[in-house]
């Protein structure tokens, strides 16, 4: 069958029509080359946070739901992954799966409560539920309280690949990150993703078109929590540590900041945002508490002057999708 082409329409350049594919290739090349240039451990940690931010962005950027409690899924996945690897001797693939399943269950419970209210209440409910689970983590015996779970064994992936080897560990994290990223991309560009965007733009209209928006929101919430769980569980294996920091409210704030800096509702924004924020924390570590002030100032500046974020501004300038 011949395609009908409008002769007056300007043919988009390759850069325009394939901007996302080009962006993806650049990202993959950068992540393959980067360990030769900078610290692999830092990069692995950054990829975990990038996946975390992408998972968060799935909700805020594509359904318009601001979850202010995403540390819950990241942190609890991290705890269960660390605990199952250390106390039960799970191999890393099962440990990560255990953590992810924990996050999915938490996401299902918290999500079905939070979607009962809209807008600003949604943010407050997710934050409050996350704080409740923070207190559980603080009081539960298995989390190790203030010390957290330390010296988590990395083990052998599928019984073959020794994750103590830095190259193998890096490859595994890279594969997990890229699969998570590709999965989110797939969700966003599926018919399901189109309904999510319709809910973001006008929920009432989506309801009037016959969509059960609450179900769509819940599925999106569980997907987001699960992917945040993958990130947290992987992080526990990489850093061999799960602690209260992962599950406390500043972590929820940090993932919001990463996504906001990179660009809400852009596919590459959260990745760039996560790297920018982590590099900043790393470089500014010597000045101590001022980091908090600088992070706050970035929040204020982003909201007032720079709402599209880094990638959003670039995409807008070049008039492409990123």
């Amino acid at each position: 069958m011949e395609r009908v082409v409008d002769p007056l329409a300007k043919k988009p350049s390759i850069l325009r029509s394939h901007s996302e594919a080009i962006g993806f290739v650049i990202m993959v090349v950068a992540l393959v080359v980067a360990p030769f240039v900078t610290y692999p451990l830092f990069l692995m940690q950054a990829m975990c946070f990038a996946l975390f931010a992408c998972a968060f962005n799935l909700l805020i950027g594509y359904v318009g739901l601001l979850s202010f409690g995403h540390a819950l899924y990241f942190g609890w996945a991290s705890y269960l992954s660390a605990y199952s690897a250390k106390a039960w001797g799970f191999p890393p693939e099962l440990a990560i799966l255990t953590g992810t399943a924990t996050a999915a269950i938490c996401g299902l419970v918290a999500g079905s409560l939070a979607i009962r209210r809209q807008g600003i209440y949604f943010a407050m409910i997710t934050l409050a539920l996350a704080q409740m689970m923070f207190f559980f983590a603080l009081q539960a015996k298995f989390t190790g309280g203030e010390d957290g779970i330390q010296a988590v064994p990395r083990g052998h992936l599928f019984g073959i690949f020794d994750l103590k080897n830095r190259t193998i560990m890096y490859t595994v994290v890279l594969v997990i990150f890229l699969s998570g990223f590709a999965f989110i991309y797939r969700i966003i560009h599926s018919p399901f993703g189109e309904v999510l965007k319709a809910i973001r733009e006008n929920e009432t209209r989506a309801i009037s078109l016959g969509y059960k928006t609450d179900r769509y929101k819940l599925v999106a919430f569980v997907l987001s929590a699960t992917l945040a769980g993958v990130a947290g569980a992987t992080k526990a294996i990489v850093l061999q540590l799960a602690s209260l920091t992962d599950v406390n409210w500043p972590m929820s704030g940090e993932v919001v900041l990463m996504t906001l800096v990179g660009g809400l509702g852009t596919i590459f924004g959260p990745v760039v945002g996560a790297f920018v924020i982590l590099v900043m924390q790393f470089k500014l570590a010597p000045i101590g508490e001022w980091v908090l002030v600088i992070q706050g100032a970035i929040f204020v500046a982003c909201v007032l002057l720079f709402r599209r974020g880094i990638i959003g501004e670039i995409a807008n300038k070049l008039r492409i999708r990123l």
Partner: protein
Amino acid sequence: MFEIFGIPSTALFGQLLIGLINGSFYALLSLGLAVIFGMLNIINFSHGAQYMMGAFAAYLILQYSGLGYWPALIIAPILVGFTGILVERFLLQWLYKLDHLYGLLLTFGLALIFEGVARNYFGSAGLPYTVPESLRGGQNLGFMFLPNYRAWVVAASLVVCFGTWFVIERTRLGAYLRAATENPTLVRAFGINVPRMITLTYGFGVALAAFAGVMAAPIYNVSPQMGAELIIVVFAVVVIGGMGSILGAIVTGFGLGVIEGLTKVFFPEASNTVIFVIMAIVLLVRPAGLFGRRA
């Protein structure tokens, strides 16, 4: 002294009093949040930080000018309320046309700035602030010992809460406020300066938080992180009560404080989480909140 359910009365009433004190702070803070949300359509995430600023203002007033608790109780809220007015004029006013999420994010950023600055200058440890001379000591009521200062905190916050309710629900100024919440354009057409009213409302809400902070200073010490965790509990209180009603915010605040206090007696492990559990139950049973109207 007698026993109730095997618990000595002094312990029970002691916790009940602590519950009422916490409830006073929940009520004052959720009231401020509700008043601000009504006019600005913004959830003020920096409310906890502004409560902390109130306590620090009282501390600094004592350190640098030697003025004690009573002057601080007036001056600190005015000073902090004034910083609120600046925040509204220079930052928040640009956000009214955007999604309310941006208001939450901006005020969250402000909370980080305020808390970070306080931590840099004063460290993370708490600073002591003594109970004023005139309110030291206490009354022995037979079934419990009632410290004067704590009785004062409960009484003062009740008076301030109901005063605020009276102004908003029963006076002409309050009628303007309520009208402006419903339909700002129409109220402006009547020649009332709505933007100024919004600015002053924000300043007032922030001053309420600072007032709570000054009252909290002798009880909890003055520390940079005193507001951060409190504000999350207050958010849960607001979700439970719903922000539509001033009286609802007051009743929910005190009620939840008391329930939390009782939980400390009967099931101490759950005292940190009981309010969040109640929030979850309320969301299941009455999703709009106890006093909320379905939007």
